[in-house]
């Protein structure tokens, strides 16, 4: 028996916790008690978390409560996440949901058994015995249980769950993971399910979804899934458990029901519609003329009570004449057994009804008669005939095309089609519109005109006969209910240019919105056809009989002027106020000319509508003559073109704006009328061409004459091509300004065609691109120069897209290696195969370092190639990566290589010579000195052993022998030093020149200790050089200074540095014997001496050594001296490096 205790925290004293709740919640093996109930007084509607926190803080009991807490909160409060406040809180229950307590307890107990610390509920429920039992209960209800570990993505599916989707729980084909479930969801349902899941996890919205889920059989089955997430102490969802149900059958049944209902409803509606829609009278007559049956719509004028007919004879009901016709027909039908049509008139209510009858045999001796009242149609036909002429005129005068058609059948197309699309009426009739109309505009929206009486405006693009796209604006009306039309009437208007203007406007300013017209006027009578046609075209028409002075206006004409159509047509004089005075004058004259000379007219006029608003009108008129050729009538049309004019005005305004813009940007705009050869330039063009407007002839040739002669043929060709329509004008060319400066121009242009497809004019732009061209040229020039330099310097050039097998190698490169005639010598492997293997390794290492350091370490190497003829070619190869990707990977490398074989050979020679010289020097130092020591040694031995027997002179001679051998020894030593300074490797470093000088001088102390020498050494001198060499340098120079001041009473030696410009110059100055500059040409040559050996002994090699040290330190040395007045030696270091 386990003892478990709870604390219940009740957030509002009003809430009553059911007594004995713990007893009701007994779970096997666990004794459950509710330890305490903490009712917290709180005002309703106050946030619970605040109440709870204040409770935890202020009751002082918070720390004492060691049991898990269950919070019960009052209704009407939106629960927030409590677990955040205290991890002892295991759940939060609304007071309305106290039934959930049991579930919460059980859940907690199961969690508590596994994890007494109540940190996390993490292990799977299924492994727990109690949970298993719970599962069984749930599954008995037909639900499949799932348990998703959100952290790991693993998901436990119960046996029932698996069964629902057709699997055995242990089936290896079913992965127990979230993904395995998610992937099975029908693609169209995924988004919805995941959204619900997300909402649940993030906002705790209920998760209850129905979706199609993939069954093992491969079909999708409906499933319902509900679930709930469990959160960790910081509010993260860690786990979610739930169940699924198979609701497939239910869903299918629901769907079927829905469909059936819909179908039923539909079929019922159809029947009703059919019945009520038949406008005709239906009779059934027997062969002897007895009415058997009678149906008539109630609203029909022919309606009679069926009883008046049935059982009676035809003749009893109908007038004799009609009965006769009818009976004749009946007989004919029964004999011929075919449908026949009859027409007859029936007096009715004082009018004569036009009737049309259709008779057809039914059964053996019965006839079905359908009678239709066609009175209105007949009348209309008459009127249409009368209107024919006006209609024709209107149609011909209009720019629009009228089409009457049914789907699949073209009844009529007005001849204007030729003007608009270039086709004849016959050709148009044979077109397959779906092939001619632009794919984006299909299907044509006339499908929407299925309802009689409905109208629609739509646009589409269609190819004309020249195969150009034209925009057509079409207004269509379904007049299929009018028998005279029996189809749809369309007005087609070519709006391509309007469209272009619109596009232009849209593009520039978005100013011109689309005007959308909606016309939904029911057409009742057939004369409406004309009216509608006029309305569609915004066309009014009129007719004036010159003899009777009778004038007729169409309704649309009234509309255009905003006049009341029920009033009589205004007289000619009255019409004056409908126009601007000037325009009225114009119209007046034109009308007079039409009357007098039969001249037709067409003019745009400014009109003033009845309401005072102003607009534009296109007025056309034409005189009609009678058979005798006398002008009797004037007919005409008027069209409201206000919108077009407004649009044009706007375009003009925008064009002006465009001009302003181009002026600023330096783009010149031109327009060339191809027919008249007239060329119009805007202001900028003059600037671009450097021509004053007054010097411009305004002809095409004026432009052509500016073009740089060399470019003229190309320009001409381009112009020809664009005029012929092959392409738009688009090129760069050069022009010469009047002052002969050469400018680069970029030109573009496009050709406009007239209605017949002939090029009419061309518009375009020209702008000056000289500056950018110059920059381009400069770049190109530099490139050429660069290539030239490379070529001249015998350098081979290479260019490699890193990683690719192909590498570009220049001709010089190939020639260097003997592959100038081998086109296949352009691969990495072909290069690799001829590089010396050792050098290849080194080069690869260098390449890797170069890449790894992102180019910091140079790609450089001296490598050996095997020449095609077998010899060795030494090259310096050097390269750099000029392009890297964003990850620092090299993309492109270029470089060059120079043949240094000769240099290498020379170096080898020099090395060999150096070795020989070294061996020579070595033997000189050894073998030349040994005998000298012998001579000296034995001379001394002679003096020591036989000194007593030698006279004074012999002593002198022997001493002379000794001093000469020692001088020779010195000479050899100096020569050795001279040779050594040229061949040692230097160790460069910063040398404290002052300290070094002091040190060298100190070494000489011995030789001068009996003399007075004042030495001044400047402080703080530093140089860059080899300290040993500088030591030798200073030793030689200082010992010279000391030597040549030997005869001075006070010797002064000064060592210092002074600046000559920016170059430091060092000097050693003494006040010694000096020398004659005239004999100082070879002062620094070996064995050059300026003094007698007896005065100042020396080998004459010292300054040669000095000179050589200065040389290897990239410096210069010179001297200034005068005999008896001392000498000064100047030198620089590290200045001649670049020479």
């Amino acid at each position, binding site marked *: 028996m386990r003892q478990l205790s709870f604390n219940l925290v009740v957030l509002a004293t009003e809430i009553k916790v059911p007594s004995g709740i713990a007893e009701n919640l007994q779970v096997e093996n666990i004794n459950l008690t509710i330890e305490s109930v903490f009712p917290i007084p709180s005002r309703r509607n106050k946030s619970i978390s605040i109440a709870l926190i204040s409770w935890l803080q202020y009751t002082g009991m918070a720390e004492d409560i060691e049991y898990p807490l269950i919070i019960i909160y009052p209704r009407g409060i939106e629960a927030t996440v409590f677990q955040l406040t205290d991890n002892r809180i295991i759940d939060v229950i609304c007071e309305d949901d106290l039934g959930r307590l049991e579930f919460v307890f059980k859940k907690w107990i199961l969690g508590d058994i596994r994890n007494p610390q109540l940190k996390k509920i993490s292990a799977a429920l299924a492994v727990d015995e109690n949970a298993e039992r719970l599962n069984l209960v749930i599954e008995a209800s037909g639900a499949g249980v799932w348990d998703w570990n959100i952290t790991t993505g693993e998901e436990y599916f119960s046996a029932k769950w698996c069964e629902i989707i057709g699997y055995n729980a242990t089936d290896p084909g079913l992965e127990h993971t979230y993904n395995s479930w998610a992937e099975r969801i029908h693609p169209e349902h995924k988004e919805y399910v995941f959204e619900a899941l997300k909402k649940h996890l993030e906002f705790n919205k209920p998760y209850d979804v129905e979706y199609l889920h993939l069954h093992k059989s491969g079909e999708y089955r409906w499933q319902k899934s509900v679930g709930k997430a469990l959160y960790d102490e910081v509010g993260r969802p860690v786990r979610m458990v739930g169940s699924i149900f198979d609701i497939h059958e239910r869903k299918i049944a629901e769907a079927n029901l829905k469909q059936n209902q819909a179908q039923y409803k539909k079929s019922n509606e159809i029947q009703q519609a059919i019945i009520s829609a038949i406008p005709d009278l239906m009779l059934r007559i027997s062969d002897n003329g007895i009415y058997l049956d009678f149906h008539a719509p109630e609203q029909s004028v022919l309606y009679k009570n069926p009883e008046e007919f049935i059982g009676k004879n035809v003749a009893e009901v109908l007038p004799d004449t009609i009965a006769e016709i009818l009976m004749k027909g009946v007989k004919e039908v029964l004999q011929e057994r075919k449908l026949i049509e009859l027409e007859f008139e029936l007096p009715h209510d004082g009018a004569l009804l036009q009737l049309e009858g259709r008779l057809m045999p039914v059964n053996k001796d019965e006839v079905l008669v359908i009678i239709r009242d066609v009175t209105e149609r007949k009348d209309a036909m008459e009127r249409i005939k009368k209107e024919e002429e006006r209609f024709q005129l209107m149609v011909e005068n209009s720019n629009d095309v009228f089409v009457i058609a049914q789907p699949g059948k073209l009844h009529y197309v007005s001849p204007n089609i030729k003007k608009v699309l270039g086709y004849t009426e016959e050709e148009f009739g044979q077109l397959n519109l779906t092939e001619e109309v632009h794919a984006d505009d299909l299907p044509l929206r006339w499908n929407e005109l299925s309802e009689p009486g409905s109208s629609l405006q739509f646009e589409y693009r269609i190819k004309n006969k020249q195969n150009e796209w034209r925009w057509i604006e079409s207004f269509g009306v379904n007049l299929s209910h009018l028998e005279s039309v029996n189809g749809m009437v369309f007005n087609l208007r070519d709006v391509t240019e309007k469209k272009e203007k619109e596009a232009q406007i849209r593009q520039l300013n978005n100013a011109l919105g689309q005007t959308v017209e909606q016309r939904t006027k029911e057409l009742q009578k057939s004369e409406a056809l004309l009216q509608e046609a006029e309305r569609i075209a915004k066309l009014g028409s009129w007719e004036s009989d010159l003899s009777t002075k009778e004038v007729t206006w169409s309704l649309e004409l009234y509309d255009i002027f905003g006049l009341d159509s029920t009033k009589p047509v205004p007289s000619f004089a009255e019409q004056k106020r409908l126009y601007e005075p000037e325009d009225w004058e114009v119209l007046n004259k034109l009308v007079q000319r039409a009357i007098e000379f039969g001249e037709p007219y067409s003019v745009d006029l400014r009109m003033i509508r009845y309401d005072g608003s102003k607009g534009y009108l296109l007025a056309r008129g034409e005189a009609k003559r009678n058979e005798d050729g006398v002008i009797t009538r004037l007919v005409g049309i008027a069209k409201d073109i206000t919108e077009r004019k407004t649009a044009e005005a706007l375009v003009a305004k925008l064009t002006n704006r465009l001009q302003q813009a181009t002026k600023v940007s330096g783009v010149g705009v031109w327009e060339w009328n191809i027919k008249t050869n007239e060329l119009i330039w805007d202001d900028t063009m003059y600037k671009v061409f450097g021509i004053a407007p007054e010097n411009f002839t305004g002809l095409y040739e004026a432009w052509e004459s500016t073009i740089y002669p060399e470019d003229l043929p190309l320009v001409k060709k381009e112009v020809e091509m664009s005029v012929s329509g092959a392409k738009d004008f688009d090129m760069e060319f050069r022009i010469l300004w009047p002052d002969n400066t050469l400018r680069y121009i970029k030109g573009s242009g496009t050709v406009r065609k007239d209605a017949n497809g002939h090029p009419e004019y061309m518009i375009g732009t020209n702008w000056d691109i000289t500056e950018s061209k110059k920059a381009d040229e400069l770049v190109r020039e530099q490139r050429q120069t660069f290539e030239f330099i490379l070529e001249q310097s015998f350098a081979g050039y290479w260019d490699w897209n890193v990683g690719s097998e192909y590498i570009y190698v220049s001709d010089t490169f190939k020639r260097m290696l003997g592959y100038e005639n081998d086109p296949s010598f352009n691969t990495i492997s072909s290069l690799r195969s001829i590089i010396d293997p050792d050098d290849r390794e080194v080069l690869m290492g260098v390449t890797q370092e170069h890449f790894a350091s992102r180019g910091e370490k140079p790609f450089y190497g001296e490598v050996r190639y095997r020449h095609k003829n077998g010899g060795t070619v030494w090259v310096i190869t050097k390269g750099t990566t000029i392009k890297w990707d964003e990850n620092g990977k090299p993309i492109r490398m270029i470089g060059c290589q120079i043949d240094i074989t000769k240099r290498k050979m020379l170096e080898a020679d020099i090395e060999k010579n150096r070795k020989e010289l070294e061996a020579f020097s*070595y033997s000189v*130092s*050894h*073998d030349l*000195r*040994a*005998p*000298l*020591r*012998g001579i*000296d*040694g*034995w*001379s*001394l*031995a002679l003096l020591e052993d036989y000194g007593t027997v030698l006279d004074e002179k012999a002593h002198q001679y022997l001493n002379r022998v*000794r001093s000469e*051998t*020692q001088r*020779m*020894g010195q000479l050899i030593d100096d020569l050795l030093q001279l040779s050594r300074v040229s061949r040692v490797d230097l160790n460069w470093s910063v040398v404290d020149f002052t300290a070094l000088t002091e040190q060298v001088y100190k070494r000489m102390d011995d030789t001068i200790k009996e003399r007075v020498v004042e030495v001044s050494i400047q402080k703080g001198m530093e140089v860059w050089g080899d300290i040993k060499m500088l030591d030798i340098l200073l030793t030689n120079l200082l010992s010279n200074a000391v030597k040549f001041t030997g005869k001075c009473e006070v010797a002064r030696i000064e060592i210092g540095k002074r600046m000559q410009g920016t170059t430091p110059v060092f000097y050693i100055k003494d006040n010694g014997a000096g020398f004659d500059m005239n004999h100082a040409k070879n002062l620094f040559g070996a064995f050059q001496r300026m003094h007698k050996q007896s005065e100042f002994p020396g080998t004459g090699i010292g300054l040669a050594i000095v000179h050589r040290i200065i040389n290897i330190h990239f410096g210069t040395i010179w001297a200034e001296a005068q005999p008896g007045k001392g000498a000064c030696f100047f030198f620089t270091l590290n200045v001649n490096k670049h020479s």
Partner: protein
Amino acid sequence: MEFKSILLVEDNLSDVDLAIRAFEKTGLMNPVFVVEDGKEALDYLFCTGQYFKRDQSDTPALILLDLKLPMVDGLSVLKQVRLNRLTKTVPVVILTSSNEETDIAAAYECYVNSYLRKPVDFTEFANIIQQLANYWLKLNILSPKPQ
């Protein structure tokens, strides 16, 4: 008292005589044994060839070694001396005409004890011999005999 010998390795006989002459002036009693090439020097030291009867343990008190020698050069002799258990502690002084840095460095690399340059001036040369003999044979304490 028995004096340990001085081994002089020198191919120039004039130098040998001058050296002995200078040596005699020091008044030291050590016998000077002269060999004229490197091979003979090694034979003497390791008791091979013509010196096979010699007692190898009778190592010289000092070896004066020229670098430029017939057959085997001085540097090679020095290396062999330093490699041998009996001779490796014997003081070796290079006495040569060369003052090439490479020679000096190489000699010290081979653990030479001293490097001296023979001057042309015999007075100086005698002075050097005198000083080195004084130092190595009088002042300097030799390593005990190897066991």
